[in-house]
């Protein structure tokens, strides 16, 4: 037993200090709530919320409960984070690779992009896009169609909506394709390890992911049609687009600024990762006769990913947390809907702020667990 009495002292004192501080806070909170006549409890979540939210992924209006309002906010936060993460990764990888390009112009261009966007506060960028750049867009009646179907106006981006028939069959076909690809990949690996034969996995995968859904259209009775937004006159000078899918300007401004800002950090991670692979690895791979593509795929990328993944995870987490800045431009995310409107209506400060914080905590922790698992999977297995 490595229990030591002299170790107990500092720990005990620290714990007592922490307990005292928390006790002090709780005691005061109780007295304050008694004085103001507020009772503590989460019962309000099932009450009727009686406020509207402008943009929501699930059906919601004032007659639903506060819990449903919370879900609306949470889904909107997740929507912005997921879109932002995807776009930021794409831009970040392109810029990060461009920074290593031998082409001087591209190299400089990427460097200026990074230096420019990461040194300006994100909130300022959101305001810029929302209040300055997107406000310069035309009114709905003056908007010109992009490719005939997209309408970018001051009231948001209007895109055609998909109307599916037998959508579940289409979904199953995609799932089947993914499972088939995984199976083929495992088989191909086995084949290579035992017999040294190479299978064109990439081509087969591409074929599968296109052909199976296509078959579902031809045989499975899946049908897809588009609903193109139509200009509709509400009043003499007021027009809107009817039908189709409308993305509010808040969402556009937010995803644009979040992804442009986070992409700079991801670009730096990617650059550091690729630079972190020593030159000898590349030369050794080339000298055993691998083609440049194989060098990149089999030697450089697996090693670079090990360096890239952990800091990039951090950036994904940052993006998710930064999406709470949505409150500044009234995009109905978790903070605005729940910690803003709902808090104003109920006055349950402690409950609502704690739920909001707990939600973000669990979002962050789940992303980091997922990424840690992936990181562990691709880490070097030392024997």
């Amino acid at each position, binding site marked *: 037993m490595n229990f030591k009495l002299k170790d107990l002292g500092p720990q005990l004192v*620290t714990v007592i*200090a922490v307990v005292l501080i928390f006790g002090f806070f709780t005691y005061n909170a109780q*007295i304050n709530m008694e004085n103001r006549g507020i009772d503590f409890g989460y019962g309000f979540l099932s009450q009727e919320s009686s406020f509207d939210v402008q943009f929501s992924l699930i059906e919601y209006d004032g007659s639903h409960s506060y819990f449903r309002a919370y879900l609306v906010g949470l889904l909107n936060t997740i929507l912005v984070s997921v879109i932002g993460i995807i776009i930021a990764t794409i831009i970040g990888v392109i810029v990060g690779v461009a920074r290593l390009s031998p*082409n001087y112009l591209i190299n400089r261009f990427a460097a200026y992009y990074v230096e420019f966007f990461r040194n*300006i506060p994100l909130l300022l960028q959101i305001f810029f896009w929302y209040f300055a750049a997107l406000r310069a867009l035309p009114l709905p009646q003056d908007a010109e169609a992009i490719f005939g179907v997209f309408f970018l106006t001051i009231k948001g981006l209007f895109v055609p909506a998909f109307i599916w028939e037998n959508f579940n069959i289409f979904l199953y076909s995609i799932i089947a394709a993914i499972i088939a690809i995984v199976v083929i990949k495992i088989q191909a690996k086995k084949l290579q390890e035992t017999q040294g034969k190479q299978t064109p996995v990439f081509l087969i995968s591409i074929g599968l992911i296109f052909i199976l859904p296509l078959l579902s259209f031809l045989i499975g009775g899946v049908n897809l049609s588009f609903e193109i937004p139509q200009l509709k006159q509400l009043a003499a000078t007021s027009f809107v687009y009817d039908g189709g899918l409308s993305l509010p300007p808040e969402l556009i401004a937010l995803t644009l600024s979040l992804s442009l800002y986070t992409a700079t950090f991801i670009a730096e991670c990617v650059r550091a990762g690729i630079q972190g692979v020593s030159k000898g690895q590349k030369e050794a791979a080339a000298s055993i006769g691998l083609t440049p593509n194989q060098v990149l795929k089999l030697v450089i990328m697996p090693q670079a990913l090990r360096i890239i993944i952990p800091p990039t995870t951090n950036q994904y987490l940052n993006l998710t947390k930064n999406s709470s800045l949505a409150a500044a431009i009234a995009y109905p995310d978790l903070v605005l809907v729940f910690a803003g409107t709902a808090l104003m209506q109920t006055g349950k*400060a402690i409950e609502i702020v704690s739920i909001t914080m707990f939600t*973000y905590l669990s979002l*962050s*922790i789940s992303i980091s667990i997922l990424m840690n698992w992936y990181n562990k999977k691709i880490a070097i297995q030392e024997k």
Partner: protein
Amino acid sequence: MNNINFLKPDKSNLNTFLYTGSFLFFFSVLDVFLNSFFKFNFVGFLPNFLSFFMPLILGFIGLHFIRIEYSGIKQLDLINKHINTNNFNAILSLLIIFIIIKSIPPILSWFFIDASFAGDSKDVCTGSGACWTYIKVWMRRFMYGMYPNAEQWRINLSFIALALLGSVGYFATDRFKKYLTLYYVVIYPLIAFLFIFFFISGGPVFFDFSYGIIAAILSIIVGFFIPSKFKFYYFLIVPFALYILLKYFLFFEEYIELGKLEGLNWVETGAWGGLSLTFIISFFCLIFCFPIGMAFALGRRSSFPLIRYISIGFIEFWRGVPLITVLFMSAVMFPMFLPADFFIDKLVRCIIAISLFEAAYVAEVIRGGLQALPRGQYEAAKSLGMGYWKMHIFVILPQALKLVIPGIANTFLALVKDTPLIFVVGLLEIVGMLNLAKTNPEWLGFAMEGYVFAAIIFWIICYAMSKYSYNLEQKYKTDR
């Protein structure tokens, strides 16, 4: 003359290729240039679609022609190596050159040529360019917020004095160099606090907070002389005890008046704002988050499990939540946790919230430095008979902090960039003031100018900070 193969330029026909190639390339650049500056199009007679892509096609052919390996001409080889290695790169290079040429005229005209600088009302802003008059008129608000115009010299004077006092380190002779740490860690923050408290505020706004500052600084000074065996207990207990002693037993309401400087009006913190508030908040958060972060970094590496878990909990909690919810908490939840008669100014609450938030990030950065040190350093220090505190203060931390200069600089940059978020509690620094000015009915429609202005200011601050951190990193780099 040998046979000319246009698909494969080689050295034997160097001059032919060089002249045709450069002619085509410069012709395409000239075409775009004339097009964007003088609205003149060489190839305007062609169909619209073709004339749009003509420069790209011509430039591409030109670059293809001059792509001759080992031509023996130094400049040509340099160009080929840098912008013209293959067809794909050639197209990208051309695109970038064209985009730059195309974007110069609109940017120039918006910023300078069509912009209005003179005058002091909206009427002068009739051109299509920027209205810098708007910035000029609102300049005082953007810099000082709602701080009364007649009192703004107080902010200027304080900032100049603090900048001068802060630069002491550069002029200190070797004799005084060893006191610099003490100066920057204890004395300078104290002076800065006194300036802000007595001079910029001029009143009892900070009063509850000032007990805390006095208690912290007194206990740090005395703490240097406490034997290291008791240092831990000392720092855990004495500052709080001193604070309570000061607040409830030694100072009374009558003394509040003593805290004022004669002849200075009190300006409440709600009126502070603009860029000066950005500086004040960044400065104090920077000072506070560093020691707190260091304490939690050491706590997370501690061998005592309970202390370690508490530190992990603290760090992971703050790192897991967005700053905006922390500020929400400080605005609506925190007052509930304090006694009813205990009033903390919202600026102070903001500073506490941001400091705790950034402290968690600083802690993680410092922990990285502590982990990167080889075990031999710890063992060597221990074998010399150093205790925990001596070992960390004289051996471990100086090396660890040196390693993490870039990380700490990044955290501080993030802190400066996070200050605009204080709009949540109703404080308006420069971005907040911009949003206020934007809604002024007399000055509608100038959002763009305001944001561009603030972006330039923030960019300069952040870029300077990152360059400075790079210099520090180079200066303290030790080969190992």
